[in-house]
């Protein structure tokens, strides 16, 4: 008997079984306690509440939503808002971050100084503090009555930023952006993917042209289909009396979130890019010089591509982390996914189900981001095992 207990296989199997078993017991215990507590309070459980209408408003929505819309639609609105905010902020953060990262490795003393100051200031202060700061700054802009338009078309007021734009539904705008991104990705893929290298340049150019034609058709169709009825095609903010009419209003909440997350993300991305540049051996640039390439060519064709490949895994982690940061919108009542879920919990009391939906939503989005970017990483990473870099 003792011999069996001392047997390594027996021990290993029992440890594993014990571990998994304990976890299962824990989960079951939580679920059972939860159910009994809910019943004791007279709350129903289950997902039927998703069909009920909400009865409350959502301040920012890309699709049609009214107070009589069902809960599931409210959740979709929140999810779309988070994705929308995330996409815009991550893009800006990347642009600014790459620019600052390049500044910090440029060799120009002034640019390096500014870059370093930018990174140190915005990395060392919590995001929520930055968000509140930008929000209060935006709220203290002059009211629409007093604000003068810049360049005749842009107005920065305390009630929001008014910009000119197309009169189309928010969803159409989202789809157009998606189409443009898809078109650009297909074009990039055609130029760089290994499987197309065999084809001649002319053939690839033809295919890229087709891709852009398809994209243009999709964009135009979306604009046509998404036009808001009985409105002019293009709307420009006009100062009329106490307020601005026409134009697209970007609410201070949304704008503050975009600014805060973009800048905070840019500070982190700049550091990552900088470490990527620093990891490139000096010999690469020397070889470029020896071949007679100009400094700009060395930068764009040798150093920048290498830096991106080196830091891609770290960047992927950073993007996932930044997307999670969009939940900060709740601090200023921007209706992102988290805020919608917490309002729904307040209003309907279906806490457990909504938390499960919340977690599920974030898991799906984060895994998707990681999956897509990991595919990109695999496609572009340096291959082979004999690399001397």
């Amino acid at each position, binding site marked *: 008997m003792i*011999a069996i207990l*001392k*047997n*390594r*296989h*027996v*021990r290993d199997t029992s440890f594993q079984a014990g571990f998994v078993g304990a976890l299962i017991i824990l989960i079951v215990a939580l679920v059972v306690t939860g159910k009994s507590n809910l019943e004791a309070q007279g709350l129903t459980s289950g997902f039927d509440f998703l069909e009920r209408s909400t009865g409350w408003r959502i301040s920012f929505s890309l699709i049609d939503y009214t107070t009589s819309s069902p809960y599931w639609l409210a959740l979709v609105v929140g999810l779309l808002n988070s994705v929308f905010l995330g996409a815009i902020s991550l893009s800006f953060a990347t642009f600014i971050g790459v620019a600052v990262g390049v500044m910090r490795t440029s060799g120009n003393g002034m640019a390096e100084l500014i870059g370093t100051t930018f990174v140190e200031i915005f990395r060392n202060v919590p995001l929520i503090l930055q968000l509140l700061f930008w929000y209060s700054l935006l709220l203290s802009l002059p009211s629409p009555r007093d604000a003068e338009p810049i360049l005749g078309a842009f107005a920065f007021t305390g009630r929001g930023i008014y910009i000119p734009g197309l009169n189309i539904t928010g969803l159409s705008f989202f789809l157009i952006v998606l189409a443009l991104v898809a078109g650009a990705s297909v074009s990039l893929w055609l130029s760089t993917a290994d499987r197309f290298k065999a084809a001649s340049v002319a053939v690839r150019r033809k295919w890229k042209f087709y891709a852009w034609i398809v994209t243009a058709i999709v964009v135009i169709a979306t604009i046509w289909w998404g036009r808001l009825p009985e409105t002019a095609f293009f709307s420009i903010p006009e100062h009329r009396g106490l307020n601005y009419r026409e134009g697209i209003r970007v609410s201070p909440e949304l704008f503050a979130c975009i600014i805060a997350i973009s800048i905070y993300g840019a500070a982190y991305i700049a550091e990552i890019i900088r470490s990527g540049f620093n990891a490139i051996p000096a010999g690469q640039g020397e070889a470029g010089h020896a071949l007679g390439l100009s400094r700009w060519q060395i930068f764009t064709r040798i150093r920048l591509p290498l830096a991106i490949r080196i830091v891609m895994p770290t960047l992927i982690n950073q993007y996932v982390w930044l997307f999670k940061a969009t939940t900060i919108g709740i601090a200023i009542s921007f209706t992102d996914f988290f805020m919608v879920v917490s309002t729904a919990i307040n209003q309907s009391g279906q806490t457990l189900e909504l938390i499960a939906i919340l977690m599920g939503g974030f898991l799906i989005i984060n895994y998707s981001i990681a999956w897509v970017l990991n595919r990109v990483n695999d496609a572009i990473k340096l291959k082979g095992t004999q690399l001397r870099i």
Partner: protein
Amino acid sequence: MSEHAILIRNMNKYYGSFHVLKNINLEVKRGERIVICGPSGSGKSTLIRCINRLEEHQSGDIEVMGTMLDENVDHIDEIRREAGMVFQNFNLFPHMTILENCTLAPILVRKIDRVEAEKTAMEYLARVKIPEQANKYPGELSGGQQQRVAIARALCMNPELMLFDEPTSALDPEMISEVLDVMVGLAEDGMTMVCVTHEMGFARQVADRVVFMADGQVIEQGEPETFFENPQNDRTKTFLSQVLGH
């Protein structure tokens, strides 16, 4: 007390589907010194690592100092206590001093009191001729010195049997002899030793038996004189001509 230090019968080992050790039969009596040699990939390191369960064998028996090597954790622990091992890459613990390297296992495993463990450690360090380095860190010693510390560290556990896995292969040529001298000294003191090495001079001087392995099998074994002067098997002849030729 069994007469045999190591008894291996019909032992087979696989890495997945790759048959790396084929039907090994080997006996090592107490006090015997065995040298195992062979071309790279022959499985000699794998064989010696199976003896103290750093690798697992799939079929056959291995018996060390009378204890059967099987899934019983007490058996494995006992074998590891009684068999000392010296590695090709020394594997000294870099965050501890030389003295701490030597006293760690005796204190934790054999539950020896610290003062006594340090005394034993200093004795063995003197025996490998570097007592003055006791309070230095491994990174501050040369390769030859580190390997001698590794031998002393294994000896501090007072093992019945010492296993050497290519102990001089990672050393610069001028340091090989200082390590081999220590090993010769150990042999002369009667320690049972199983040594995987390419140092044929050492084999001639010290070994009671030389075992030649190739492709996972024991091809030939014999006393050094017969082995080196009169190898029977063709493969042995080829190997010896390559190794001794230059």
